[in-house]
């Protein structure tokens, strides 16, 4: 039991997640603030950008960041004694409010192999010798798949790409993509942003 838990944890940590790309030479400790650039709508879905923007504010506030909005410019205040300013941009690469998912529910019988081994001992009356006789029969049962009912539901899906750029030099210093799916659109957006905001929090620590 302990081994299986340990294997799961190790697999979990060493598997390929969408890790952020980071400029290791950049000093994130000297960041004064992060200016959040307006998020454009995804294709023709009016309001999608605003929805992500509002959810982004919520997530930053949840992680105890200080937010300010002056003349339609939104900023995350980090450290007044520092001088570097970062620009945060977010691109919505997928915004599916509702997609229908149908899962056929099937019962699969993978079959089995049956081997019968017969052993017998015979005595030759003339030579008085004992002989062992062995024979085996193997039967393969193919199994079958029974197509049953199906379960149907609709889910939301969202994909985002975040980029942090240094305002003065124009260098891109951090980038991350993330996606999430769920039954509820608002929760799906929140969960998708939660991970990215958490990553930003980690680099600013």
């Amino acid at each position, binding site marked *: 039991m302990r081994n299986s838990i340990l294997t799961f944890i190790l697999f979990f940590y060493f598997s390929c997640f969408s890790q952020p790309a980071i400029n290791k030479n950049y000093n994130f400790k000297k960041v004064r603030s992060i200016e959040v650039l307006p998020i454009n709508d995804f294709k023709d879905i009016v309001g999608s950008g605003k929805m992500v923007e509002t959810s982004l504010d919520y997530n930053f506030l949840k992680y105890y960041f200080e937010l300010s909005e002056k003349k339609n410019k939104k900023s995350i205040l980090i450290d007044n004694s520092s001088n570097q300013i970062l620009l945060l941009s977010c691109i919505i690469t997928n915004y599916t409010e509702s997609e229908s998912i149908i899962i056929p529910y099937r019962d699969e019988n993978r079959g089995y192999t049956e081997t019968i081994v017969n052993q017998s001992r015979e005595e030759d009356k003339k030579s008085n010798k004992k002989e062992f006789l062995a024979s085996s029969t193997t039967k393969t049962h193919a199994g079958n798949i029974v197509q049953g009912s199906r379960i149907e539901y609709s*889910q939301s899906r969202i994909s985002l790409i975040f980029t942090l750029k240094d305002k003065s030099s124009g260098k891109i210093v951090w980038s991350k993509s993330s996606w999430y799916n769920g039954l509820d659109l608002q929760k799906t957006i929140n969960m998708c942003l939660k991970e990215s905001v958490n990553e930003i929090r980690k680099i600013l620590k």
Partner: protein
Amino acid sequence: MKKIIILALFTFIYAQENDFLLKASLALKAGLYNDALKHISDSKKQENTNSEIYKIEGLIHEALDDRKNAIIAWKNCFKYSDNKELKKECKIHLKNLSIE
């Protein structure tokens, strides 16, 4: 006679399973997540190694803000799935749910 009884029993169990999933689908469409969860739990009594069922269970628990049970469902989904994409999805959900 025995064969007829066995056949009737199998038909009954199989029909029950289908019925649970149909009810779960209808409840999901109506947004009645608690009811859907109940029907899914009933269907799992017959077959509890279907990763897709655990995926839906995980999604419902997330929608209901039940983080603890969502983690259990996604772990089971990962355990029983042979699908690479689904396993990746499980990992993404488990990672996000582990963030405080």
